[in-house]
């Protein structure tokens, strides 16, 4: 079965991202596929390369990064939600003349159309937290 996951909660303030990651791993382990991950609202904080939690604590952004890479998943971060919250890639940093960029390159910035499309394309569309 083809799944799409939408994640609306931030790693430091919500359980959503961790639950979604466990769920995504179970989906793959059971032989299903993931059509797309879509990070929206505070979920966009998952895509930062700058989070540095203490070493004996879970590093959720890094775990998502390896999971996405290992399974070659399509991971989209909503561009409007990301820009609002200071999650930005190199080309947007240039466009808005910001001094730095922090979007992990396993994710790509794109529009909400990708969320709607994921909802339509997938057999199961699952939302995690807000």
């Amino acid at each position: 079965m083809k799944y799409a996951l939408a994640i609306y909660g931030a790693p430091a303030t919500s359980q959503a991202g961790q639950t979604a990651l466990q769920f995504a791993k179970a989906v793959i382990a059971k032989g299903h596929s993931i059509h797309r991950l879509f990070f929206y609202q505070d979920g966009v904080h998952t895509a930062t390369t700058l989070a540095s939690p203490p070493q004996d604590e879970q590093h959720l952004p890094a775990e998502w990064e390896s999971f996405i890479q290992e399974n070659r998943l399509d991971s989209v971060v909503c561009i409007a939600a990301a820009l609002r919250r200071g999650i930005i890639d190199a080309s947007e940093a240039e466009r808005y003349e910001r001094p730095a960029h922090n979007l992990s390159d396993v994710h790509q910035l794109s529009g909400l159309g990708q969320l709607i499309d994921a909802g339509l394309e997938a057999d199961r569309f699952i939302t995690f937290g807000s």
Partner: protein
Amino acid sequence: MNPSVCIISTRAPYHGQNAREALDAALVSASYDLDTSLLLMGDAVYQLLDNQSPEQLSRKSLAAMLKALPMYGIETIFVDSESLQERGITEDQLVDGFTLLEEGALAPFITQHDKVLNF
């Protein structure tokens, strides 16, 4: 026939960006020519209160944005009547242009849509 989409908004209008971002999802869905319904339930019913003054919070009025929805192809906003009752809100306190879903109508309303996005 185009698939139908139900966007469920559940948060108060100025609770962070949640309500605004749920509305954005509804607008994008409608712009894809999908038959899109916006359903307000829980604290989201506060979004429709008339006479909001969010400029004191340096925010834009959600009610004003909701009023403009027909221009974007979303004809009616659906409101859960139980959520209104729980909060002591009466229909005349809300801006015009909504359809009330009475108790018992909520579940059939949601299931008649092909896709449901919950915020």
